[in-house]
């Protein structure tokens, strides 16, 4: 077992043991915190496919996170008010069933990623960063000024949505749902990285012209990767909205994009568990530093600087050394 695998296994163990402890000790808020970490990790895992495997520095992933959140908000608010979304040619009702909401979130954010990616991936380098940022801002302003779904105020859902056979309002059960999804996506991501597609995508990041000369279109590879990446981040957005029972344009802001990117970097780019370790650490910092000072963002900023400047490869890089990255 490589050291990276040991770090990963330890992380998984913590993610199982900590909530169980909190459950036994009757600390529901600790479970809520863990749930938040797991969901943000999922968003980071999504981004990591574009960022780590595909080398696409997207500063606009908040768009997909927010679309996922709004998929939940729109469907659930219509269900809550017994007010169909569309009566027109055929009836579309709102729903409070999590699986349907997830599916909608995945499809909606996937379509958005496909459209944004189709334009953005024509550009490279700094232009790509900026154009993804700009698309994110476009959606952000749209959400703010679109009155039908709360605009700046956002949408509040009184109760959490339902999952067949589970009581989602019980923190540990909702945690179980989020954790299961994270594990499933991690397995899929690991397989994706090893697949023919992953191999080609990874090669396109290193040497675009080689991939072209073996008859594979890097544009197509990246567009698909960007879309998958957006879908996963969108799913995370739906879960995040359900955790908070609330969705607002803040989820679409560029600071959110920056934060998702921070999870990935804190943990380690292109490492399977990088975003997981990063998100857990971020939540921990937010919780602990927030208690020390009103000005905790200064410390967060300083820590981030140190990691970027001196600990390349993130926390996992530090723990596991610079051995096998994509293996």
């Amino acid at each position, binding site marked *: 077992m490589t050291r990276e695998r040991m770090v990963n296994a330890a992380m998984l163990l913590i993610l199982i043991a900590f909530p169980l402890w909190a459950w036994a000790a009757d600390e529901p808020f600790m479970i809520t915190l863990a749930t938040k970490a797991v969901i943000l990790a999922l968003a980071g895992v999504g981004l990591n496919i574009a960022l780590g495997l595909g080398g696409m520095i997207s500063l606009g992933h908040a768009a997909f996170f927010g679309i996922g959140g709004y998929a939940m908000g729109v469907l659930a608010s219509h269900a809550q008010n017994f007010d169909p979304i569309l009566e027109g040619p055929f009836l579309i009702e709102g729903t409070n069933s999590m699986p349907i909401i997830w599916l909608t979130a995945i499809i909606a954010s996937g379509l958005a990623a496909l459209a944004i990616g189709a334009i953005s991936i024509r550009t490279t380098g700094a232009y790509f960063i900026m154009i993804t940022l700009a698309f994110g801002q476009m959606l952000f302003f749209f959400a703010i000024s679109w009155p039908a779904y709360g*605009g700046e105020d956002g949408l509040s859902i009184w109760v959490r949505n339902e999952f067949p056979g589970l009581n989602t309002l019980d923190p540990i059960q909702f945690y179980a749902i989020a954790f299961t999804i994270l594990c499933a996506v991690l397995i899929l991501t690991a397989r994706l990285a090893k697949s023919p597609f992953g191999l080609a995508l990874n090669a396109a990041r290193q040497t675009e012209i080689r991939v072209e000369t073996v008859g594979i279109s890097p544009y197509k590879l990246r567009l698909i990767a960007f879309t998958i990446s957006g879908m996963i981040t969108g799913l995370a957005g739906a879960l995040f909205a359900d955790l*908070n029972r609330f969705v*607002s344009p*803040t989820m679409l802001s560029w600071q959110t994009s920056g934060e998702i990117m921070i999870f990935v970097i804190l943990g380690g780019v292109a490492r399977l568990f990088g975003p997981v370790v990063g998100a857990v650490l971020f939540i921990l910092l937010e919780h602990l530093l927030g208690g020390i000072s*009103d000005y905790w963002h200064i410390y967060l900023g300083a820590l981030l600087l140190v990691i970027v400047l001196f600990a390349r490869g993130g926390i996992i890089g530090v723990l596991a050394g610079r051995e096998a990255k994509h293996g």
Partner: protein
Amino acid sequence: MTLKSLAIAGAIAALGSAAWAEDVRIGMITTLSGGGAGLGIDVRDGFMLAIEQSGAENVEVIIEDDERAPEVAVRLSDEMIQADDVDIMTGIIWSNLAMAVVPSATAQGVFYISPNAGPSQLAGRGCHPLYFNVAWQNDALHEAAGAYANSAGYGNSFILAPNYPAGQDALTGYKRTYGGDLAGELFTDLGQTDYASEIAQIRASGADSVFFFLPGGMGIAFVKQYADSGVDLPLVGPAFSFDQGILQAVGADALGIVNTSQWNRDIDNATNAAFVESFVAAYDRLPSLYASQGFDAANLILSALESAHPDDEDAFRAALAAAEFDSTRGDFAFGSNQHPVQDIYVRRVIQEGDIFTNEIIGTALEDHGDVYAAECSY
């Protein structure tokens, strides 16, 4: 676990009543950092001033910073309800944060006393027995501005607000009471800082007055640019852009502007005089609208605690609804939807020495409630 100011002082025995023996925990989530932190700081300071003055020993206040982010507010409220087991919550400044926190807090059986935000959803169909607003329903000051415009004889107003729900509500509120024509109606970007384009349109519109709702830095920018533009139509707005905290940054450009408020430091009653004096003594600055709201919110809670503990939901609710406390505003009562019924005043910005402040020049609306009360049924 995060920033916790614990305030425990004095003995309840002094008040001669011990209807409750257990401790009461109040969770305050408010904005203490980033843009708009000044408002939260004022609410907190006003609130804590009242708690300290009461000498209440068994009241514990847990204060946390929401960074003006709904997600943070939700996390804090989860923490307060699930981990800290608070009985009462308060403190939120912004409507969008209130919408994120209040419905789920009240659904979990916690009282929420709003010291500032009063979104229409919570006053109407979304009203809740455990939710009280001690400041105003969001529309109130705008409706007062419309009433003032009528009495001032304005017949052709140009109105503008940021393009977000509170902005849209502001224009609706103004139009609800205003009887004249509209020379123009504009939505600006939220957070916009340059209003040259809007001012040009005002200039070209042939209006006789301008109503605007631009809270925080937006208002500062607008007023300064407006003064510089040479357009000299009278401005009317709600108090938010002309309150104590912000007025010094606007400066002389704000002099003479008329704004509407349910409070001012020159309201003539003993409670208010004592509040202003003790606030200045404690914090070395003049209190703002928000400080008075925080002060009133704390006194409302304290007055209800005298007769019941929040664990006895019905009794505590009845005690709150009675509103038997001395408000800095003078007369104060709750309407059927547990929102204030109160006078709204017309103020004008003046200069006293180096300090810019307001004086009351009239009353826009008396015993004013809100239109959403009719939609509220428990």
